[in-house]
């Protein structure tokens, strides 16, 4: 049990330090790397409490896909310069500060609600309508709940994600003129007669090509 708590403190320490470093570090790319470290240590914590499926999904979805896109955006847009401006002395008005304050207030109240519920009603975990047996594996019990009792919510969240995805594509898509596209069907169905033209060339006259 000692080893267990030692590992718990190691992982949570890494998680907290890297979460702080995400906001503190000057270089935006470093921030994203710290974010990745944070995700990884949190997935380790998930695995430690026995939620192995959640931990692995955390790794696959957040670290394997979302953080890669973060890195992409940060590297491509070169946000590093912009971030420097926000914190430098000649920042323009500080319009980001109120929004940030609002978000942090909301998150703070959410935390109060969660911790309060856990503090004043410790048997909350036992009052669940679904009984979770410890014999069934993690993955199976999540599936049992997700695809039966909460199937509607699951489907709706999937729909919302799909709509968001299509919306993003519609917003960023623009038709550009003069783009050459390859059509395999056109290429394969080309015959010899269309491609090759045998011409009887006259001496010192040249050949007229009509495209």
């Amino acid at each position, binding site marked *: 049990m000692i080893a267990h708590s030692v590992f718990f403190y190691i992982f949570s320490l890494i998680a907290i330090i890297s979460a702080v470093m995400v906001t503190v570090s000057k270089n935006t790319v470093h921030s994203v790397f710290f974010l990745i470290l944070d995700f990884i240590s949190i997935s380790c914590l998930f695995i430690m409490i026995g939620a192995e*499926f959640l931990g692995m999904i955390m*790794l*696959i979805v957040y670290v394997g896909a979302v953080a890669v896109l973060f890195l992409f955006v940060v590297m491509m847009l070169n946000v590093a310069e912009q971030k420097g401006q926000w914190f430098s002395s000649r920042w323009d008005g500080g319009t980001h500060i109120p929004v940030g304050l609002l978000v942090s207030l909301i998150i703070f109240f959410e935390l109060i609600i969660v911790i309060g519920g856990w503090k004043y009603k410790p048997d909350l975990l036992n009052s669940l309508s679904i009984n979770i047996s410890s014999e069934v594996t993690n*993955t199976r019990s999540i599936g049992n709940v997700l695809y039966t009792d909460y199937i509607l919510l699951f489907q709706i969240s999937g729909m919302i994600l799909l709509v968001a995805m299509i919306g993003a594509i519609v917003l960023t898509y623009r038709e550009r003129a003069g783009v050459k596209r390859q059509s395999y069907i056109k290429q394969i169905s080309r015959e010899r007669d269309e491609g090759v033209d045998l011409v009887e060339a006259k001496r010192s006259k040249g050949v007229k090509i009509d495209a």
Partner: protein
Amino acid sequence: MDSYFSILFTEVYKILFLLVPVLVSVAMIVWLDRRVWAFVQKRRGPNVVGPFGLFQSLADALKYIFKEIIIPASSNKLVFVLAPIVTMTLALISWAVIPFGEDFVLADINVGILYLFAVSSLGVYGIIMGGWASNSKYPFLGAIRSAAQMVSYEVSIGVIIINVLLCVGSLNLSDIVLAQQNLWFVIPLFPMFVIFFISALAETNRPPFDLPEAEAELVAGYQTEYSGMMYAMFWLGEYANILLMCAMGSVLFLGGWLSPIDIFPFNAIPGPFWLIFKILFLFILFALVKATVPRYRYDQLMKLGWKIFLPFSLFYVVLTSSFLLYFDLLPGK
């Protein structure tokens, strides 16, 4: 405390017993790759150092060790040094869950296949970090290409894994192998096997999908600024990843440690050897593809991943599940 240390020592012993053979076989597999490549092109390949040139990779490794490590002045030093370490570590830790036989596995975890998938999706970070930290155009372009490529092909690999899982009903790798006792999944899921093989080529940046290091356009891609042992670590990590993809293919589709037919001369051979034969078979296929197929163009690569593989494997998920449902073959009832 005493028992704690004894557990620690046995575990370290087991890990060494797994990692040292993996590293040695990575060195051998590089030799095999070059030999197969040479045979296809009617050359001799490396044949000087040791019998049949077997020790060529060891000689190369020795050379890399004694070469100077150059860290570019304008690079981001810490990330630059971390990148090959990340690549190498991620390539090696995934071997922990590969089952070499019944009860012959380092970590028999419930979500083994998810672990493999997660670690292979982390593999992209070594490349991005290397490319970004080099602070130079070619490595950066290589890293961007490779990140996009690996993320795209991961999606189709994920859907292919779902196909296999539908037939097994468990995420444990040993269960996946044991479910193939009567019929290897390569037979009912043959199209998925083909797509998995091609996606594995793309995932490990092998030709014909080696655009991240296309030497004609990007010098050596994300490895351009690396030298000496750091370059060798990228290289080892890459080949360890290729071997891992072969192992994953043999566990998912070719029945892992199981012998092809359960009669005397075949089932007398111990399980680990069967797994090694299958890994070698898949690896020789990888090498033959490298020797014969020209490189893809980048837009073709993306088109193949998103517009052909993803819809087809999704369609196959529907097909597999409806087949299993109709004939009442769903596992885990």
